[in-house]
């Protein structure tokens, strides 16, 4: 871990402006991912801007009947909020499927969205990794890749996005609110927050330099059976091999997103037209472009079967 200076931000706009102007500045909120990576010198900020005191930790109802979740709402608090439990159950379920109680007590809503991949080659600074060191190559391709991505990947990177929460946010059509260095705000549909790796796997989001997430807004509740099914070898405290977030309406229509298979929460709206036909048809649409490795080919079948189980459960 390199030395760094530290300050506590006084307002979101101030934090954003400083992050844009101070060389090597990074925001720190929960810190559970950033400090982990700083210890391995994968992240080497020269300056940390602590945003914990900005008051972005409230969950408020929006005028159109949705919920506005402050960027600093802890995963535990978001999962436990009775409005979320009643009306956005898929989000609550996804949150409690992730990490551990200790981590959820600290990890924030925005930080969860922005957490970086758990690809073991990314985590080992001795190994080439295009995400960590652009142009150095991807050592995961041809290496140990059981956990890694099957769709949305590229020749440069096959890492997955590790979040559970983000998968639920994606199926809920959440919107990410930000403030930019000049003080302007904008709203980014969750679908557009994360970028596919392509030739630039080190560019992970559409956020600009210094841009700070201030909240995530959930549209008004859509009802339906809301399920999150996370599949893993270990019964708890493990990243997903595959996860399925689904909202299934009584008429059989609905939405589906997958976790553990792609560089971002994976949703293909067109595939949802096949909801009534069942898991096979939906998965065929979701994973039509899958390019698995020998190690992770099983994820394609696992996704289909997990979705089938979720749909069966939704039917009651």
């Amino acid at each position, binding site marked *: 871990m390199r030395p760094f200076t530290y300050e506590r931000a006084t307002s979101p706009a101030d934090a954003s402006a400083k992050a844009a102007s101070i060389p090597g500045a990074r925001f720190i909120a929960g810190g559970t991912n950033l400090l982990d990576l700083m*210890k391995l010198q994968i992240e080497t900020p020269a300056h940390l801007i602590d945003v914990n005191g900005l008051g972005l930790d409230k969950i408020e109802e929006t005028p159109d009947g949705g919920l506005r979740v402050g960027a600093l709402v802890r995963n535990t608090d978001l999962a436990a909020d009775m409005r979320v439990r009643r009306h956005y159950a898929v989000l609550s379920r996804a949150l409690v499927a992730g990490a551990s*109680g200790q981590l959820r007590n600290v990890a924030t809503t925005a930080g969860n969205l922005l957490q970086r991949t758990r690809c073991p080659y990314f985590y080992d600074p001795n190994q080439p990794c295009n995400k960590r060191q652009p142009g150095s190559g991807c050592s995961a391709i041809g290496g140990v890749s059981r956990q890694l991505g099957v769709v949305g990947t590229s020749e440069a990177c096959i890492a997955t996005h590790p979040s559970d929460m983000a998968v639920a946010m994606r199926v809920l059509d959440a919107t990410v609110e930000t403030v930019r260095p000049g003080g302007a705000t904008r709203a980014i549909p969750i679908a557009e927050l994360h970028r596919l790796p392509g030739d630039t796997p080190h560019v992970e989001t559409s956020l600009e330099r210094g841009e700070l997430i201030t909240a995530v807004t959930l549209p008004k509740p859509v009802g339906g059976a809301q399920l999150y099914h996370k599949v893993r070898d270990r019964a708890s405290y493990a990243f997903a091999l595959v996860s399925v977030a689904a909202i299934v309406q009584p008429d059989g229509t609905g939405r589906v997103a997958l976790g553990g298979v792609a560089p971002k929460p994976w949703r293909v709206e067109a595939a949802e037209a096949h909801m009534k036909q069942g898991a096979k048809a939906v998965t065929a649409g979701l994973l039509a472009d899958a390019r698995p490795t020998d190690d992770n080919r099983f994820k394609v079948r696992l996704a289909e079967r997990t979705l089938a189980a979720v749909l069966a459960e939704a039917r009651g």
Partner: protein
Amino acid sequence: MRNHGNADVSRRGLLLGAAASAALTATPRHGQAMPADADVPSAPHPGPVPIMNPVMNRVSLTVNGAAQTLEMDTRTTLLDALREHLRLTGTKKGCDHGQCGACTVIVDGRRINSCLTLAVMHEGGSVTTVEGLGTPAKLHPMQAAFVKHDGYQCGYCTPGQICSAVAVLDEIKAGIPSHVTASLTDAPQATNAEMRERMSGNVCRCGAYSNILEAMTEVAGQKMADQQNGRDPA
């Protein structure tokens, strides 16, 4: 406005309540201004790496009821502040990466991994470690239950298990749902499945899980009995 090469003056405003006592001797490695999101990666060691002095910072917090003020490198985790600076070595370093739970402490009423938080982030905070729960001569009920049910073997994960166990019973009481809570809208109960799931962030390689559960069950039962007695109108 802000000169990191001569930070003594400028950082005074930057570090709230801190006396910056050291300066960077070279420009930070990412002198090109890295965005605050995760866009720009860092190479392991591309080219010459600048040598930088530690940045010192003062933090005041309460640990096990006692006020403490520490002057520390900003890089110091809460875990190392406890173990190395305050010499409260009951809190253990098992992985230093949030993957084992041995460093679990209770901060402002919540259990957290003290390895993945900086001490400097806890200005004004209140920390309870295993030493703050009880002493060998006066064990906390959870500590006593661990002894009675042999809820440990090598003892290294034990302080974290105990801090977690105490907090878990509070979390259940507070109605916080877990992965195994059947109904999200009902209050969770201190069942075996709930406790196992909630304790899963505390790895015990000796495999004392079954015994830890028995210890927690006993304490949860005592708590419930105490509550019922407390509510007794007589």
